[in-house]
């Protein structure tokens, strides 16, 4: 069913794309078929309804920024915005573990790990890498740390002087935790997020938290 010339004319008028010639043609047509005025009004109403629905559905786009790391509005914010509260908590926990001394973790006092006995005074790691290694070792022993996923580069920029490049990347640590329940979010009939209990059998490995 190809659109008729009337369909095209009405569509152009509704879309504010009609030329003076189009308006003249429409007026000539309306003299012969006055019903086209009713059609025009109806299609303008439909177009306004659809525009309202699309504007409402797509307004979320204005809040989505590019993950470029400048002035604190970088990848970390985009990542946190996307994955929400739990992910933020998990990252904070991982960072906290990484920076805490081994003996500061409750229940771990006095236990030996691969690189020596750390009983007694809390040990302050000498570097972030050392702290992260400690976190990995403790996490593995607790059954919490499972491994690390490949790093994802977010941005690279030259450091003034030109000899070095600053690279910002996303580091993904895989952890395990036992929880009481899991919920997904569905929309109710008013478009609000509503928690829905999820059976573990429907959860896929690729789903983000």
């Amino acid at each position, binding site marked *: *069913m*190809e*659109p008729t010339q009337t*369909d*095209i004319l*009405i*569509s152009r008028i*509704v*879309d*504010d*794309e*009609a030329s003076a010639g189009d308006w003249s043609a429409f007026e000539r047509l309306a003299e012969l078929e006055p019903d086209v005025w009713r059609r025009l009004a109806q*299609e303008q*109403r439909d*177009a306004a*309804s*659809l525009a*309202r*629905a*699309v*504007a*409402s*559905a*797509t307004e*979320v*786009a*204005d*809040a*989505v*920024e*590019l*993950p*470029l790391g400048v002035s604190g509005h970088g990848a970390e914010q*985009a990542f946190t915005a*996307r994955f*929400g*509260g*739990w992910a933020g908590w998990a990252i904070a926990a991982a960072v906290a573990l990484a920076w805490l001394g081994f003996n500061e973790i409750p229940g771990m006092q006095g236990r030996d790990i691969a690189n020596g006995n750390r009983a007694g005074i809390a040990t302050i790691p000498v570097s972030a890498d050392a702290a992260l290694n400690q976190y990995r070792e403790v996490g593995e022993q607790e059954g919490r740390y499972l491994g690390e996923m490949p790093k994802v580069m977010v941005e*690279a920029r030259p450091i003034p002087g030109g000899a070095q*490049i600053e690279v910002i990347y996303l580091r993904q640590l895989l952890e395990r*935790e036992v*929880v*009481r329940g*899991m*919920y*997904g*979010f*569905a929309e109710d009939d*008013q*478009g*609000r*997020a509503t*928690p829905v209990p*999820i059976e573990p059998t*429907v*959860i*896929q490995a690729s*789903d*983000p*938290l």
Partner: protein
Amino acid sequence: MSEERGHLDGYPAPDRSPLTAGHDAWLREVWSENRRWVAAILLAHKPKDADLEDLLQDVAMTLVRRHQDVRDPAKIRPWLRTVAINAARAAGRKRKVRLRLVRPDADVETAPAPERPDPSLLDEARAALDAAHRLHPDYREPLLLRCVRGMSYRRIAQALDLPVTTVETRIARARRMVREELEFAEETVSMRITRDTGQTAGA
């Protein structure tokens, strides 16, 4: 004819080195100018239960990481459309459920109810969007794009890589099909009411 023509319409070739501040600014402008209609593309192709914001984040990340694949800056819009369609299709394949762990002492967060305009207008808007969703994507996509402010026939044609006349024809046909869908739905409701009323009266 009216048209909000963005200053990026011509997309003058930027300094394409990934290591310059000017490049970041260019990328931001590209995203700012195009994210609304990219959202409309996602809306036209995504499964109903897929989260639009998640998909926009995917497109934004791809723009940052892969924009160097676009050799001709004038082709950035068709490229963004392809990225958006791929993201929407991937969401369809995965059928992702957005999951959150609920800690024993944590309340489940729910979004506050937004202020709502006239309910009858909302119903009309929802019905029109539902009808548009039942169209073939070839018609649904230009129709939804036309609903985004500033998307003229010419800009839609540029994004879809189609002649302007084809875009115009598809939009006109899409409108007619949406109207027929809405009339059919209205008639169905009307018939149901008549039948139910008749049954009640006869009982």
